[in-house]
């Protein structure tokens, strides 16, 4: 799965570089591609996927790249463009679609692009990023952070600080093709916009068609939605699924974001921690579902093997929750050529609209490449050809209303993984209900810590108070200034 993506990615990169730089150095790119595509299935898929990508690239590239090559590299720009990220996802998009990027020399408008990618696990990414940002003013030009990525759970930590730049200083402003919540999320407490997102992440209910047929008698998205459009109905279907030997969802925290990202109150207010009522609701649901056997009794986390195994064709789970990025990022097992169930899926709004995750681009204060930062930010939000390719080739739901709308209305567009369903239309229908509110800098610690600590209560091994105390102590450990109950 990973190889297939890699292979098509590299193949596309190859052809792109051939198209844009007349084939010089194409040979070196090909050699890197070759080892990755060493397995037959991957190679076969590549040949299918690549032409689609190539055609677009070759036809559309000249239009976007012509002005880029005209624009001489700004004289005041530094000669290294440093980007910090926690995985290779955006790097892949950037290298394929960023106008003006030369894959052969790894330069953008003649400026060397350097990626610093650290894993988000154990907060390694943020730790290293923080160190770099705090030293950015005094750093050597080649080491200055220019652009970095941040996720919804901790973006406020960066936007609400002096380490990020107001995008108006870069010559950018909010454009009306952007979704409002993505702008709100990137704004500091004074309303200054500090960054842009290349994704909009409305999150839906992703169900297994064959199981829906067995349980609900239909796999048609509209009919399934009608039977699952509230939590009461969801509960009823869960009971029905259980009778037939299926699980409603797999992980105990599968629905956590549906609740938490519709929070009516913040995790921490006035320096005091309190558990939002929606999180209480989720806890009750998770406990009931575990007790009733509606979910896996092994209680895997949402990223664990035990849950992911449910996406193989042998899986017994009907529902998963996730946004567009979920298909490629988390459902590798479902796309596995041998044991997967490609095409046996569909997405609907489900009981409650919500968002999950999302990646924002922020400009680091002290950047010596402000023009390039602005250029990248613009490309991934306003450049329609870039956005179109993000949907077509990468299965993304972009932060450009016009482009999304175009695909939502295109009768010929369909996602093969979802049995040809137009997922863009489904996600586009949910965007109005997404709100960004009650965010705090403590959200990541609280969301992750709570899911972790409450597990003992859900499986009945400890009482709720002990579980909460464990959670409070975890928060105190990370944020000594927060008062806990």
């Amino acid at each position, binding site marked *: 799965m990973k190889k297939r993506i890699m292979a098509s990615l590299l193949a596309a990169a190859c052809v792109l570089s051939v198209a844009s730089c007349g084939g010089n150095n194409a040979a070196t790119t090909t050699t890197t591609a070759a080892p990755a595509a060493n397995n037959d299935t991957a190679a076969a898929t590549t040949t299918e996927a690549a032409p689609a990508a190539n055609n677009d690239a070759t036809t559309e590239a000249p239009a976007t790249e012509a002005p880029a090559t005209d624009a001489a590299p700004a004289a005041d720009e530094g000669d290294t463009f440093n980007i910090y990220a926690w995985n290779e996802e955006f790097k892949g998009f950037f290298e394929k679609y960023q106008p003006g990027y030369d894959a052969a020399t790894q330069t953008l408008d003649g400026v060397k692009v350097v990626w610093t990618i650290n894993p988000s696990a*154990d*907060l390694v990414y*943020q*730790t290293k990023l*923080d160190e770099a*940002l*705090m030293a950015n003013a005094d750093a050597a030009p080649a080491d200055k952070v220019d652009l970095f990525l941040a996720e919804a759970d901790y973006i406020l*930590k*960066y936007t*609400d*600080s002096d*380490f990020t730049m107001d995008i108006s200083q870069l010559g950018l402003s909010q454009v009306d093709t952007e979704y409002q919540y993505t702008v709100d999320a990137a704004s500091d407490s004074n309303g200054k916009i500090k960054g842009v997102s290349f994704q909009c992440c409305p999150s839906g209910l992703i169900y297994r068609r064959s199981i829906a047929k067995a349980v609900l008698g239909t796999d048609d998205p509209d009919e399934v939605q009608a039977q699952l459009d509230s939590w009461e109905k969801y509960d009823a279907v869960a009971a029905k699924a259980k009778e037939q030997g299926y699980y409603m969802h797999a992980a105990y925290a599968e629905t956590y974001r549906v609740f938490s990202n519709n929070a009516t109150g913040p995790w921490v207010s006035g320096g005091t921690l309190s558990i939002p009522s929606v999180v209480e609701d989720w806890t009750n649901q998770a406990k009931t579902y575990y007790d009733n056997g509606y979910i896996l*009794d*092994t*209680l*895997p986390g949402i990223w*664990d*093997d*035990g849950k992911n*195994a449910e996406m193989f064709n042998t899986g017994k789970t009907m529902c998963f929750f996730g946004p567009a990025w979920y298909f490629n990022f988390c459902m590798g097992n479902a796309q596995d050529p041998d044991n997967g169930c490609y095409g046996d899926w569909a997405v609907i709004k489900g009981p409650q609209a919500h968002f999950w995750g999302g990646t924002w681009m922020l400009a680091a204060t002290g950047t010596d490449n402000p023009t390039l930062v602005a250029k990248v930010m613009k490309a991934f939000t306003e450049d329609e050809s870039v956005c179109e390719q993000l949907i077509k080739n990468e299965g993304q739901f972009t932060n450009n209303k016009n482009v999304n709308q175009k695909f939502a209305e295109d009768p010929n567009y369909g996602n093969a993984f979802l049995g040809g369903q137009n997922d863009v239309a489904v996600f586009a229908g949910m965007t109005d209900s997404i709100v960004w509110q009650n965010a705090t*800098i403590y959200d990541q*610690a609280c969301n992750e810590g709570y899911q*972790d*600590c409450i*597990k*003992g209560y859900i*499986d009945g*091994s*400890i009482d709720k*108070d*002990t*579980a909460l*105390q*464990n959670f*409070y*102590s975890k928060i105190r*450990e*990370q*944020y*000594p*200034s927060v008062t806990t*109950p």
Partner: protein
Amino acid sequence: MSSTTNSAPAKRRSISYAKWGYFFIAPFVLVFIVCTFIPLVSTFYNSLFENYKEGLTVVGPNFVGFDNFVKLFTPRADGRLEILNYTVNTMTMWIMGAIPQIVFALLLAVIFTSERLKIKGQGFFKTVIYMPNLIMASAFAMLFFQIFSDVGPINQIITANGDKAFLFFNNEWSAKSIIAFINFLMWFGNTTILLMAGIMGIDQSLFEAASIDGANSSQVFFKITLPLLMPILIYVVITALIGGLQMFDVPQIITNGTGNPDQTTKTLVMALNGQINGNTRNFGMAGALSVILFIITGILSFIVFRSTEPKKEGKKK
């Protein structure tokens, strides 16, 4: 070359070479002072300050006296004193691993050194038993996590019979046992090598004398081998104890840093790591935890020393 000028006259020595002693120990002492002693003092000094990071803001350093210690020794709302828990967890898991580790090592050392048994293929066995120590602790943690995971082979066997999967990492004692077992597996070879060296150092004539007197092998072991092995055994126990107090990688990786279930596998160094790493950079609290770890190590080592009371230092040269 004489780095330390010292004119201390050599007493009782036939030749006055004493000042060479300073030359020989100088690199060790210098490096120790720079790399351990100064950091140690500054760590302890840190423990008296409030100094951490919140978001991107650095709070402190503000002198707070013993506030960090007070916080560490304040029980939480439900009465649990976490620092005590972490200490007990660490010690429990250490003992659970160290006892089989030393027993296995003693048995192996006796088997290998026995004149009577004359084990064939000793070279192979001796080579093999140390090999687990070559694998990284994190790799062991991953392997055992795989074996005992909810969908792992053990649970495949359990669920094949229609039984409910047993969640090894959701149960305090199974989780602790797995961690202890990994530590045992990693270190018994190392201990065997040390004990073997110790047994081979025992004067063979003592064994011969004992067998002439008609002592059986267990008598020989308890009356001769074990007492004479004591100095090495103390060394083994103390180094194992220090290793045990530093227990970190295995529980950290197996529980993904959570110390689940219910904090029962969280060790002192995991708590310390939670303060140094990540977002917090809580130098004050980390310093305080280090001081406590230092004191605990001191007390336990003292107990080991005392309870096994080494014989006199032999003759000093």
